[in-house]
């Protein structure tokens, strides 16, 4: 009999560091620390603590699940960059899990807060995108779904680990951040002068 797979899930896509260690269906260890900054310093020590609670080391892992966003750009990159580095060294599959899947709940519209009174949401039958909060709220009401974009990140990392457990054998590419919003950048305003002798 083979042991059930050991999978570590983590997420820093908003004001938190979240991690969970799963063996098969069993949650072995979990940690959730709210923080508005400092995720880059805290994430790796936190992961080692979660592994230690589960009596495991990096080498025991069969797969990793990482939250790819949408959310805070820097936060997403912290987790995804760490996951990609871990994948290189451990040679195990890393599954990128987006915030909608990780928050999916029957009867509710998965939505994630975004700046300027907007949310990231996937309306039924549509690709996820950035939209005014009101639009998502109206669509949820119209579809008879509850709408709670400020839901607590409790359970997020465990769900990411759960999804990674299911998909670990289907990984074809490294996880990539899901931004859903272009970088704020305006094209250069310098208009070069005409050459009068062509």
């Amino acid at each position: 009999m083979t042991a059930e797979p050991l999978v570590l899930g983590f997420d820093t896509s908003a004001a938190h560091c979240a991690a969970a260690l799963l063996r098969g269906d069993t949650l072995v260890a979990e940690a959730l620390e709210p923080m508005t900054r400092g995720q880059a310093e805290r994430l790796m020590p936190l992961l080692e603590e979660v592994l230690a609670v589960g009596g495991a080391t990096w080498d025991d892992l069969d797969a990793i699940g990482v939250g790819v966003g949408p959310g805070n750009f820097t936060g997403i990159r912290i987790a995804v960059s760490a996951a990609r580095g871990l994948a290189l060294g451990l040679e195990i599959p890393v599954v990128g899990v987006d915030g909608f899947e990780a928050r999916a709940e029957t009867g509710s519209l998965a939505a994630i807060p975004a700046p300027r009174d907007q949310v990231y949401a996937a309306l039924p039958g549509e690709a996820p995108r950035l939209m005014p909060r009101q639009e998502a709220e109206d669509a949820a009401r119209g579809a008879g779904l509850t709408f709670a974009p400020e839901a607590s990140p409790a359970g997020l990392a465990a769900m990411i680990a759960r999804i990674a457990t299911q998909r670990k054998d289907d990984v074809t590419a490294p996880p990539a951040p899901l931004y859903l919003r272009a970088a704020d950048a305006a094209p250069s305003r310098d208009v070069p002068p005409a050459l009068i002798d062509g």
Partner: protein
Amino acid sequence: MTQSLTILGLESSCDDTAAAVVRQSDGDMAKVLSSVVFGQTELHSAYGGVVPEIAARAHAEKLDLCVIEALKEAGVSFQDLDAVAVTAGPGLIGGVMSGVMCAKGIAAATGLPLVGVNHLAGHALTPRLTDDIPFPYLMLLVSGGHCQYLIVRGPEDFTRLGGTIDDAPGEAFDKTARLLGLPQPGGPSVQAEAETGDPKRFRFPRPLLDRPDCNLSFSGLKTALMRMRDQIVAEKGGLTRQDRADLCAGFQAAVVDTLAEKTRRALTIYMDESPAIPTVAVAGGVAANTAIRAALQTVCADAGAAFTAPPLRLCTDNAAMIAYAGLERFKSGARDGLDLTARPRWPLDQTSPALIGSGKKGAKA
């Protein structure tokens, strides 16, 4: 039996994603086994400068691929390495953070020690990697983001004599190219134009030459160039090719004169210390400019100091210099934890006062 150290380096502080492997065997000079650089120039070309968020996005999805390529080219695996070195600042923080997190992931997964490296130390120590020049030497670091004079006394012992109080010369070259409709990066295109221009037609300012220190300023030069351009356009309705070449030549002459004079002053301070083998080294992309290089060579010859410039691929941003600086730190026993901080500001010389224009958070670099 000889002991050898093999270090993987990662660099992502501006718009180049880079990974490299450097090895040093006992008593020998360090060797670059591989140095892979993925540039991002085309990603930023429409914006007239490096856009930090765009740079960070590219780094996050390229760094690990860059590492794979560097290990492959060097013909080594993680088992052959002794440590992972990574740029931990100063630089555009999103990119630095991506590099630091990727390196932490590799270090945690492989058990390799992690060593955070100051990007500027990477540049400043490159002449040791390429030419094994002895301490202390005078370093002019001159690039798109930096401009400073350092006396390099040891792998972690730097004295900053002065630096720019506003823009770096490379930035001024890029801005000049944009103002005149020349392609980016501005260094090579402005230099090429300047070759057919008359450097005496336009007299641009040589800021801060009236002060005895080693500080520089280039932002007024950009403004002066723009004013002159606008004046010509107002008179003629546009620029002729000759106007453009003359503007470039005048601009470049101002940069050359300023750097030459300030280098002369830095050399005076350095030579007062009676170094055993007086040497001036230059690093950064602007060191590729032939007019600047020629002027610096003359200044050094006049002062009786040797002049050295690493090959361009090790002068501009790369990870071999990070691996090498990491190797030096590793040898001195430095190890960083998985809580290593990515720092946007990280002056090499922590004791000299911050330069004017550094802002209330203190020196950037």
